[in-house]
């Protein structure tokens, strides 16, 4: 029995008819579109027909026809979040029916936001994710944490680009990106089981369409440090140094050495001014799409605000993506990305031997240049040790090198029957790098000299191959819908390096770049050569996933993945990682009122992920060759070889178990859209160095499975949009909070020491049971002794004076354990590098051709340990806030007195050095204008946009150091420590984009 159904499709918002909407009968190819009045008519084929009604920009609706012959459909304007498709690994899924916690960032969110790497672009745009700069130096990596700190090891997420697992996404051209999907809960990530415990970031690049177009974009900007630390000027410096020495009774020493009595008439060098300079960035991007192909070219050239050309990142990149249908059955395609990066680096975030450290410590009495001094740079008479004139450090910096990369995949897809797709995909990630550095001879002062100039030169080659074969099956059976995938992945990886160095390039040519090669030196010098290869890494995986839903209302998915990694011994090579998830679209129930909540979904998931991020062959008894000893009258260095680490054949996968509950909701005619997630994530069998008894005699501790970490967190994403006439307004607020706790540490100390403050020679971070990973340790201070009676009033329970050596103006330390003495047993938790609240707010509006986009990001409640002040350098300059130090006439309660002979230990690690790092940043501000079509037509252009874009235009923080956004260098116990940070840049720029 055939019957016909008719009806009208209108905009739920204002009731106007929607011409051109598509009406399809579900499970068939039967369909039609609405006419100019929004009317349609369709002859039904099935017995229990279901219609899907869709229209671009509107939410697709499913209609169960039942016995009706006429249905009127009101389509709601789509909120992107739900109508969009999310990439779930080996497939895609409509966000509306997805049961995992997945956030999506689309190309439009990245456009015009001028940052060199994708990671930066994610900051503030996704809930549950923390992005931190690790340095403001061009080309430096960014640290990303998804859902807290999962492990004591590598916390970076798994990166997938067009299906290819890659080790880094630092060099990807952000404008090639179609979308980024951030998979956060275990149900979503489990399909990548192994190594997905820190979350997965899937990048899909642009694939091109049939329609031909070509786009050019040019952008240039100027960068300045967002802030320059304010240092003491010459007068203040002399005053404070003299006071410091006087407080130790050593004024005579200064006079003997001829230290000035005042800064009057001194050159008053501001070293921060000398090292920081405005820098430039230039970016050209050209892209074309035609015949289902996408082609792009990019040039990026960015100088640093310190060191200019010597702190530079350049990238040349080409992408060619294409897909072709051979016939109805077979299609093929490829993604290919070639890039060259040239990166000139200065040492950063280190209180020893970096430009920033030099500029911080160097005194304002020393001039910058001195024609009589070596290479023309004046060197300080006062600040020595490993410090030199910062500009002479810059002069010494010379690293010339580049890296080339081929990254991509080729695939074939076969569709033998409806709903079934067989895919085979071969991916490669090849990279080469070479470097060449020249170090001149110098003798700046006794502790800083290098008698022989030297050249180092080297090469490296890495390759990673990935072979994937999988089968998808997708079919609707009436209201039942099935989406299944099974497949295998093989990954292998190898790495090789070679290089060498030589000494003594002849003076005549040493600064000539043409001669700065290993064999340019005379033959009588000593050359060192090296070559090495890494142990191959292999990963074999089998996986399957079943997604089922009933009427888009009751949702279920299950995943199982089995991984074998060469990083484990035969006993524990394989790991199995399951997950399950459920969802219920409550708003589709008949009992559910239609207003104000238009969509409500609850979902929950549970799953297990793994990690194998340790070195290769760590389970085996490797003989290492690096333990030399000299013998003989004319000494010869003998190379020793031994077992350095006790093997651990029982090494196994680290596992993280995650439970996630989420609610997705849309209100007020879909204008407001919200998503909330709460999760508990527990990582156990942490892979880490096991502290075995020292008497076993291992040089390095064996890697073992130990300890447990837990993260509990809440994430919210709230979007709102409103159209008022021609004015469109959108905003999205992302909120993240999490609580991280070290649950268990093996052994009885209940803590593991982390990063050690070099001059203090004391670990200042720890993993402690019950505390966040990498929390800070030090003495707790109770203020400043204002007078003698304070000193004698600070007593133990037995009445003993706790700090008998203290003077007024010294810090008061707490006797935390109450044992009557202040010693290292009183070291205690004095802060955490992890923020309590992370917020990102994106505001955008457009009116006719004008648009504005504002992105704020903020982190609240994280602490920073300031470790860049060097207690061991008596003449080191100081920040100007030290003018407020305690003196008799200025009884400060904030800063202790300055003293050389620090008998009280004011310079011991304490909470005096720990500060709140909360900040609010205007991450990006963009104002653009798109030419109207009337003019475009005349110019034969598709679009033309000019825009202004600024990063970090505004930073609000109370933090006194270089930058409140410090992050981690990769070692999680080295997070939030300011060692003289290369600060973030404030950039201002403009660009143009033309499409034809």
């Amino acid at each position: 029995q055939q019957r016909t159904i008719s009806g009208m499709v209108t905009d739920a918002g204002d009731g106007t008819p929607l011409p051109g909407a598509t009406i399809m009968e579900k499970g068939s190819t039967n369909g039609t579109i609405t006419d100019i009045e929004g009317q349609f008519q369709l002859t039904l084929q099935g017995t229990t027909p279901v219609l899907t009604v869709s229209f671009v920009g509107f939410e697709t609706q499913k209609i169960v026809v039942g016995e009706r012959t006429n249905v009127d459909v009101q389509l709601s304007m789509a909120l992107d979040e739900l109508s969009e498709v999310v990439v779930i690994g080996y497939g895609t899924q409509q966000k509306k029916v997805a049961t995992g916690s997945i956030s999506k960032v689309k190309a439009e969110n990245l456009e015009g936001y001028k940052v060199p790497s994708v990671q930066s672009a994610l900051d503030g745009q996704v809930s549950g994710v923390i992005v931190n700069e690790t340095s403001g130096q061009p080309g430096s990596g960014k640290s990303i944490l998804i859902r807290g700190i999962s492990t004591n090891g590598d916390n970076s997420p798994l990166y997938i680009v067009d299906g290819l697992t890659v080790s880094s996404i630092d060099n990807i051209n952000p404008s090639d990106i179609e979308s980024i999907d951030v998979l956060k809960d275990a149900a979503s990530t489990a399909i990548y089981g192994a190594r997905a415990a820190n979350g997965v970031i899937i990048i899909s690049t642009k694939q091109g369409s049939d329609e031909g177009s070509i786009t050019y974009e040019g952008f240039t900007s100027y960068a300045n440090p967002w802030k320059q630390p304010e240092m003491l000027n010459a007068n203040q410096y002399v005053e404070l140094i003299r006071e410091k020495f006087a407080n130790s009774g050593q004024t005579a020493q200064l006079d003997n050495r001829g230290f000035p009595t005042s800064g009057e008439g001194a050159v008053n060098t501001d070293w921060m001014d000398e090292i920081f300079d405005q820098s430039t960035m230039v970016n050209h991007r050209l892209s074309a799409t035609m015949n289902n192909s996408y082609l792009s070219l990019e040039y990026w050239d960015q100088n640093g605000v310190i060191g200019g050309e010597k702190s530079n990142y350049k990238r040349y990149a080409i992408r060619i993506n294409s897909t072709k249908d051979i016939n109805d059955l077979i299609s093929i395609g490829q993604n290919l990305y070639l890039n060259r990066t040239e990166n000139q680096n200065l040492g950063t975030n280190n209180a020893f031997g970096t430009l920033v450290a030099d500029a911080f410590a160097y005194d304002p009495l020393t001039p910058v240049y001195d024609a009589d001094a070596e290479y023309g740079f004046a060197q300080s008479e006062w600040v020595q040790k490993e410090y030199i004139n910062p500009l002479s450090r810059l002069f010494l910096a010379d690293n010339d090198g580049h890296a080339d990369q081929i990254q991509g995949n080729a695939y074939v897809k076969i569709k033998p029957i409806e709903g079934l797709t067989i895919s085979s995909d071969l991916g490669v990630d090849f990279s080469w790098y070479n470097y060449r550095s020249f170090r001149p001879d110098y003798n700046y002062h006794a502790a800083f000299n290098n008698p022989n100039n030297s050249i180092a030169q080297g090469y490296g080659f890495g390759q990673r191959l990935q072979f994937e074969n999988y089968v998808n099956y997708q079919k609707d059976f009436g209201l039942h819908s099935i989406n299944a995938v099974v497949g295998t992945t093989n990954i292998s990886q190898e790495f090789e390096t070679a290089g060498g160095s030589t000494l003594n390039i002849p003076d005549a040519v040493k600064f000539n770049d043409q001669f700065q090669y290993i064999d340019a030196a005379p033959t009588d010098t000593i050359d060192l050569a090296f070559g090495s290869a890494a142990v191959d890494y292999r990963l074999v995986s089998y996986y399957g996933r079943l997604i089922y839903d009933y009427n888009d209302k009751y949702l279920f998915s299950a995943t199982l993945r089995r991984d074998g990694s060469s990083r484990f011994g035969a006993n524990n090579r394989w790991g199995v990682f399951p997950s399950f998830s459920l969802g219920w679209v409550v708003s589709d129930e008949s009992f559910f009122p239609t207003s104000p909540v238009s969509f409500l979904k609850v979902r929950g998931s549970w799953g297990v992920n793994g990690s194998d991020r340790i070195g290769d062959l760590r389970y085996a008894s490797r003989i290492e060759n690096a333990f030399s000893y000299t013998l003989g009258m004319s000494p010869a260095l003998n190379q020793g070889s031994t077992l350095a680490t006790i093997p651990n054949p029982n090494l196994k996968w680290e596992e993280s178990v995650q439970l996630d509950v989420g609610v997705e909701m849309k209100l007020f005619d879909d204008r407001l859209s919200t998503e909330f997630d709460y999760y508990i994530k527990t990582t156990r069998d942490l892979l880490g160095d096991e502290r075995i008894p020292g008497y076993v005699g291992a040089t390095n501790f064996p890697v073992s499975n130990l300890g447990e970490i837990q993260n509990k967190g809440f994430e919210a994403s709230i979007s709102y949009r409103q159209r008022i006439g021609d004015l469109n307004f959108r905003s999205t607020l992302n909120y993240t909070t999490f609580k991280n706790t070290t649950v268990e540490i093996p052994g009885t100390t209940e803590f593991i020491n982390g990063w050690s403050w070099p001059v203090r020679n004391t670990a200042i971070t720890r993993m402690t049971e019950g505390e966040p990973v990498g929390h800070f340790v030090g003495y707790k201070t109770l203020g400043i002794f204002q007078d003698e009676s304070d000193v004698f009033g600070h007593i133990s329970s037995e009445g003993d004076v706790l700090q008998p050596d203290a003077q007024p103006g010294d810090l008061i330390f707490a006797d935390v354990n109450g044992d009557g003495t202040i010693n290292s047993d009183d070291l205690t938790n004095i802060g955490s590098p992890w923020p309590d609240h992370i917020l990102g707010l994106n505001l955008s509006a457009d009116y006719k051709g004008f648009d504005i986009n504002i992105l704020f990001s903020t982190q609240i409640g994280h602490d920073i340990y300031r470790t860049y002040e060097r207690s061991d350098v008596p003449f080191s300059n100081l920040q100007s806030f030290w003018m407020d130090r305690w003196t008799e006439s200025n009884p400060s309660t904030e800063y202790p007195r300055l003293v050389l002979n620090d008998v009280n230990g004011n310079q011991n690690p304490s909470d005096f050095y720990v500060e709140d790092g909360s900040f609010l940043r205007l991450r990006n501000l963009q104002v653009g204008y798109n030419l109207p079509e009337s003019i475009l037509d005349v110019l034969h252009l598709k679009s033309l946009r000019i825009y202004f874009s600024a990063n970090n235009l505004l930073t609000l923080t109370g933090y006194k150091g270089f930058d409140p956004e410090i992050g981690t260098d990769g070692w999680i116990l080295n997070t939030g420590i300011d060692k003289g940070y290369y600060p973030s840049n404030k950039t201002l720029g403009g660009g143009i984009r033309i499409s034809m």
Partner: protein
Amino acid sequence: CKQDLEVEPVNQYLSENFYQTEEQVFASLIAAYDPIGWSMAMGQWISPVMLGEIRSDNANAGGDASNNDQPAWQELDDFRETNTNTILQPIYRKNYIGIFRANLVILEPELESANIDRYQAEARFLRAYYHFELFRHFGPVPVIDRLLTPDEVGLERSSMDELFTLIKDDLKAAIEVLPTTLSENELGRASRGAAQALLGKAYLYWADLDNDDAEKFGLAAQYLQDVVDSRQYQLEDDFANLFAYETENSPEAVLEIQHSNLWPSDWGWFEGIEGNGIIQLCGIRGLCSDYPEYSAGWGFLLPTADLNDHFLSDDDYRRDAAIISLSELEETVTNEGIAGCGVVVDLSENNPSDYTGFWQQKYANYKEYEGNNINGGDPNLTKDGNTYAIRYADVLLMLAEAIHRSGGADAQALEYINLVRERAAGPGDNTGSFRTAQQLMADTGWSLQDVIWYERRAELAGEGDRWYDLVRSGRVSNDLFDAEKASNLKTESIWLPISLEETSVATKLSTYPETELFN
């Protein structure tokens, strides 16, 4: 797929297929020697020389003006250390790493040859050496004569007798095999004389701590006598020359720890440093850069006034080799008319609490080290001056003591002491002009043992034996130290605590040794 996951090591062996050739066994022996030269490990300075001096009445820690430079050393200097002191574990692990590597050489090779026998004898020497060093720091600690697995966390301290039994057995076995003489390119390796001297020294400690056991003193004398009788060693004529820039592996060296400028040592890998770190660390802090002989150092290991005053008035030559004072430095600058040294030593850079006006100069920071890092590396860490672990003068003084305390002929003991005293009086033949031990005893009323203690402190000043001499002979007392240091001295302070890091994993280990262990 199983096969896919079996990866092969690259450019390295697994222990299962190592120890197959003489070269491989020799390389593993070199690795067993390696820790003996560590002046740093795990981020800390761990020189046994510094420990032996700074804990004693001979020296203060020093360092920068904060009095908090290398806090762990400041603690040790003042007996303020607790079991969280950060150098405890590095020094402990250094020696056990050496023991583990020595055990691999002793236990793993299956091939047999004369060379392998010698390598294994050297490994047994090293195993004894590392155990002895551990004992000197921590008292009786677990004896490790086999390969342990990581789960063996229940070991307890061995007794003193167990520890010295292993040392004795190892050294006796080594003496059987080790060569008496070393060829030029073997210098630095263990010889028969080194094993005998170390065994004599070990017996001396054992006897002293075992209620002055005369029989063990007798055994000490026997092995030390063997060293003398071997005629392989002789006293350097000029005492000062022992510590000159180019003096290495002289005939007086019985066991000398080797250092090298050939490896580009830097701060990135502390255990890989091949230079002698204490040369820079214990150099004169704040010394003006135009000073002719020395470069400025970092001012650790400051000799006390008490040590300076220990030298009798006719013992200046030996004192001058060990100690230099501010006035002596200033005198040199004046005499040589060095214009660039207006302020000879910037005292503002020195630790005012520990400053005494003296600096050590047995590990002097010679200007000649500048620029000799010919293969690169941090110039502060490539200074290649060696360290005497046992030199012939020490052997003679130990022999005299062992003879005397075992009830032997004092005349013979005096003869050996006088050899040392004659040389100490200055270069050339001082026979007839130097004050003999007998005269000294007559002048001062000292006993022979008093003379021996005087001689050991004067002869070996700054070389890292003082504290252990005090400990073994039960002479550590409050009277040796200033009021503050004395007030912190506790009975257990004579041993370093085993660190909390260790006892938290190996929970059966006591922090300080129980007295029963010495019975």
